[in-house]
């Protein structure tokens, strides 16, 4: 292997003091950290566009079918939805505390906060499971067995199609988050992070906050369409 020889300062490859987590193609840990966080932000932009397609469809049909949207929305359980919103906001807090702990070199606290974040996420999914189960029992799942009383059955089915697609994708993102957090917790347990290098915790935090923010939009858009009853 012909390692390049450094000619200017700050280039870490040939230096004795380079950090074990510094990859060969970066000069400094700072450069590596900046690249990783920029990459994560760009990835989150792609996620915004990904969900954005469904928000566009939601917007169009809500304008076209306000009555169906109001009626179908009332089929959702606002208490469970609000509870889950609180749970997810709580998990964002524990995630932020995990990043803070990693930043200040508290490995054990990092593990605990991540595990707590995962627990809250798990509570969210359990609640979501019961909500989905109720939809199956009431035949509110789109498809040949869909049942909805009244003249708004067609658009209501579109509403529930979007409901399942949006919340389902959101839940999928949470499940992916579990796998990532499990790895991060394991790395923290193995004392891999230092105040100098905790980039994986930070970008996992960014991802988890994004997942939360998606829900912050989904909750009012899906659950709170017409609670005042203007279209009743």
């Amino acid at each position: 292997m012909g390692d390049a020889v450094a000619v200017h300062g700050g280039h870490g490859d040939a230096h004795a003091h380079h950090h074990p987590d510094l990859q060969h193609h970066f000069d400094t840990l700072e450069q590596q950290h900046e690249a990783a966080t920029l990459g994560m932000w760009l990835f989150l932009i792609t996620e915004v566009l990904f969900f954005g397609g469904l928000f566009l469809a939601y917007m169009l049909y809500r304008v076209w079918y306000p009555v169906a949207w109001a009626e179908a929305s009332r089929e959702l359980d606002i208490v469970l939805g609000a509870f889950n919103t609180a749970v997810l906001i709580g998990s964002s807090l524990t995630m932020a505390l995990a990043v803070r702990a990693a930043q200040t070199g508290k490995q054990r606290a990092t593990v605990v906060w991540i595990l707590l974040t995962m627990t809250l996420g798990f509570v969210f999914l359990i609640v979501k499971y019961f909500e989905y189960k109720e939809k199956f029992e009431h035949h509110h799942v789109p498809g040949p067995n869909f049942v909805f009383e009244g003249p708004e059955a067609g658009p209501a089915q579109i509403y529930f199609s979007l409901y399942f697609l949006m919340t389902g994708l959101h839940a999928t993102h949470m499940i992916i988050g579990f796998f990532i957090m499990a790895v991060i917790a394991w790395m923290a347990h193995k004392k891999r992070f230092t105040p100098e290098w905790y980039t994986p915790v930070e970008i996992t935090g960014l991802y988890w906050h994004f997942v939360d923010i998606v829900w912050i939009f989904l909750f009012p858009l899906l659950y709170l369409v017409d609670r005042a009853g203007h279209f009743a």
Partner: protein
Amino acid sequence: MASTPLTYLNHEHSVASWLLTKDHKRIGVMYLVVVTLAFFLGGLFATLIRLELATPAGDLLSNDDYNKMFTMHGVVMVFFVLIPAVPAILGNFVLPLMLGAKDVAFPKINLLSWYVFVIGFLFTVYAMVTGGVDTGWTFYTPYSSRASNSNVMMTGIGVFITGFSSILTGLNFMVTIHRMRAPGLTWFRLPLFVWAVYATSLVQILGTPVIAITVLALAVERGLHFGIFDAALGGDPVLFQHMFWFYSHPAVYIMILPPMGAISEVIACFSRKSIFGYSFVAFSSLAIAIFGFLVWAHHMFVSGISVYSALVFSFLTYAVAIPSAVKTFNWTATMYKGAIWLKAPMIWAIAFLALFLVGGLTGLFTAALGVDVHIHDTYFVVAHFHFIMVGGAVMGFFAGLHFWWPKITGRMYSEIWAKVAAIVVLAGFILTFGPQFILGYLGMPRRYHVYPDEFQVLNVLSSAGASILAVGYLIVGIYLMASLFKGKHAGANPWHATGLEWTTQSPPLPHNFEVQPIVTREAYEYSSQEVTVG
């Protein structure tokens, strides 16, 4: 130079050293292999289409089979050839070299992109060999969601998966350009290819997720009978078209921007002149990327969209012609009073200029609302976008490939055969697609395999041209392969070109540079060069 210098090609030999490589240069070469396979597959479908169209009767393929041929030609060529060709092959290879970096920012993700691409391709190929798909590459609902009995789902999965490869590559390149530039390499010292790749990455990052969600929505509609675009429930099939084209129009710029970047490199080098209006060319790439997101509904002028939105989209489509024209004028102005050196890459680049000009100007015809009603879904449109995508993107790709081939392989190809091939491809191309403008204007619709007798002469000309085009591409394949074994050694900089990629040996070291390069000059300082060439 030592007898066998260490290079990225010879420092490891095992199959695993390729399949598990994180070296951007090897990954670029691996893309070249897969994309070439896809190109021949797509070309095979095109061959069957042109054979069928040689006679007015539908005598070679059944209606259904013909539908599958043009669909699979489109799917393979768009998603597996044109979109990855320049960014994933040439971009991967030269971008870090141009930046003076050892690799892209995320080498593992770069390898992952290749695997995701291959898996997506395998899904698509599987869909094709187990019955094919017949919706057109545009997958319009309700045809794709309800009517078609072909392998829409499997093809959709293939396209969905491949999209992530494109997203990850764009993301990787963008971070690389932001964070991995050599000391002294400021934004306005970057080669214009880097600007073009940057603009492309922007489109990949902002556009590709939308096609992903659109295909996913189509999949749940087809597979689980959800209703999102279903008119029977009050849904809107035109919404699908909006979402589809929100990606698929900007995708045209994913295909054409990187070749434009390669053309900027080639034209400056072989005119021995600094590029005319550097910052205009650089910003026109960004302008194309941004305006490109605002014109999608010009594909839908006859889909029943409101006349006011059609007016706006028509206007914006004219507007996107401005940055394209800026580039074309600047390339021409670069050649003006330059010392033009007619080596093979330059011949390909000039062919690009000629064909892109025709493709771009006919785009203005289709952007005009009234004219579009007449030529919509006719061969005029087919000819227009082939002039951009084959005449522009593929010619630009070949210009870049011929330019950087000595860097990639360390060998020179046969100059004379490369020139012959460029002329053959150019002639074959014009003969293939020139008559299609007339066919379309006279009213021959696309996607039909039976046509009135009076269209036969033009169709026979087109099919004859296609066979010449095929021969041209085969010649390219043959002499490039031959160069690997018999080509003269290229040396570090056979074209006396500027740019960091030419300062290292050919093929480059595994880690690109002997010493970290430091940039003190602007790009394209050809005028101060003392070398005489010729």
